């Protein structure tokens, strides 16, 4: 597979260097260990927000560093969680004294590394709260699995918790807002093709030309089941059904609808999915009050999408609308 890279081993480093150059007004890049902080961090009196995870999901997380969202992002190797020796200095760098919230996607590696870093930060006198994102309805949550994955809902948690921190909420309040978003968002994804991790060189799973994989995560890992290719409306129905059932969407609900591209699907197709999703939600009696359509949490060049539905209340809507100025999301400023 062809890729615009120089060397598989330097993909993350060179990409982060370019990101820093492109957004020099917004962020500061630390190269060893690698992490990205908001230019004006630490912001006096403000709770710091740190997220991170494997690379390959861009613009997540570095693209969301800036006013009204994250204070720091910690990228690991491609699809590999970052390590405590990155997460700890990032946490310390954005702590103004008001404490730091770690936003962690629920994967074993991310959880273990952030847990370790959180303990080390506490040992250095920084109060740390963790918001675990696990919005993926494709995974049956039980004692017998690693639990639901954090996927599309992560972007919404980062935006809304970021707005809460920016308006001056305290440490526990910011964490509580993040948890409220997580409790009210559900996501389901589909892959039309797999993706290729640079150092692996071959696609992460094998999918025939006429097959699609339902219930994928964001790491090119296979999903729950494989079915023959269908048209956009049928796939949209199939993704939304478990989302609406699990979220218990009912008549009168106001929602944010987020159609996310996995990296290799054109925006035009995402809007076809969005169009059908609005119809399905209307049939369920729900009103789409806010929307987000685009490639916001990706799996390299994978073709496919995920649909997230967030049940809104007045406060969450107000925080969603609050000003944000990052490389990947910007409004109100």
């Amino acid at each position: 597979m062809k890729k615009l890279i120089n060397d598989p081993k330097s993909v993350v480093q060179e990409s982060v260097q370019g990101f820093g150059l492109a957004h020099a007004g917004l962020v500061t890049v630390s190269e060893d260990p690698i992490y990205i902080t908001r230019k004006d961090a630490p912001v006096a009196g403000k709770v710091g927000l740190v997220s991170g995870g494997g690379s390959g999901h861009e613009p997540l997380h570095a693209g969301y560093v800036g006013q009204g969202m994250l204070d720091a992002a910690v990228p690991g190797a491609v699809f590999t969680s970052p390590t405590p020796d990155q997460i700890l200095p990032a946490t310390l760098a954005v702590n103004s004294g008001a404490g730091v919230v770690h936003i962690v996607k629920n994967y074993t590696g991310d959880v273990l590394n952030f847990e370790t870093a959180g303990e080390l930060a506490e040992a250095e006198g920084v109060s740390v709260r963790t918001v675990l994102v696990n919005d993926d309805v494709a995974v049956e949550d039980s004692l017998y699995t690693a639990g639901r994955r954090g996927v599309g809902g992560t972007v919404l948690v980062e935006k809304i918790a970021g707005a809460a921190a920016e308006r001056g909420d305290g440490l526990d309040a910011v964490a509580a807002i993040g948890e409220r978003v997580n409790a009210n968002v559900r996501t389901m994804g589909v892959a039309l093709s797999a993706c290729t991790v640079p150092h692996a060189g071959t696609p992460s799973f094998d999918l025939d030309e006429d097959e699609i994989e339902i219930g994928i995560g964001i790491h090119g890992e296979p999903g729950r089941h494989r079915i023959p290719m269908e048209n956009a409306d049928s796939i949209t129905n199939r993704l939304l059904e478990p989302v609406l059932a699990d979220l218990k969407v009912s008549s009168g609900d106001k929602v944010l609808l987020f159609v996310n591209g996995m990296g290799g699907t054109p925006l035009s197709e995402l809007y076809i999915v969005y169009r059908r999703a609005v119809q399905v939600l209307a049939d369920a009696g729900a009103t789409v009050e806010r929307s987000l359509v685009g490639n916001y949490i990706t799996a390299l060049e994978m073709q496919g999408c995920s649909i997230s539905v967030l049940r809104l209340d007045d406060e969450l809507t107000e925080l969603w609308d609050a000003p944000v100025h990052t490389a990947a999301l910007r409004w109100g400023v």
Partner: protein
Amino acid sequence: MVLDANWAVKWLTLCAQAMAEHRVELIELDRAIGDSDHGENMDRGFQAVLAKLGESTPETPGAALKMTAMTLMSKVGGAAGPLYGTAFLRAATALGDSAQIDPSAWADALAAARDGIVARGKAESGDKTMVDAWTPAVDAARAAADGGSTDVLGVLVAAAEAAEAGAVATDPMIARKGRASYLGERSAGHRDPGAVSSALILRAAVGAAA
């Protein structure tokens, strides 16, 4: 043969060699039921351990394992970094300042490593994880040591063989922890990459003593 600091350095060097040699195999195993990064991460981690060994020579086996723990924790990432980091750290603590490891101490160190992995990862036997290589290895080493074996090589071999058999035994299991658990029943029919890398580490311990 005595298991001293020189043996530990040779063991870790052979671990690095094994991870480099089996890098692609581990990536392929992980590609089937995970996310294709295990071989790359383990290779990067043990290359870093090798570099550390080049900077200074540890004075005891425990010191060598502690350095390995800190390096893996900071270089590997994913679930494997904290899990192997914890395993080596607990083993180092169990060994203390001893200059040499006798059969019983090796069995104790393996048990401490396994307990650390279980405490961090919350996995049990049969979950299709590295625990399925470690627990049989711990049991085999304990049995060999308790059998009055004063031959430390025999205890190392018993642990390595049990870990290898344990890794093979993950083939039909359905994953209940880690990234493979998202596959449910589709994870059956594949070998767990973490169990395989664990067996490679314990096999390298034999190579260092041979």
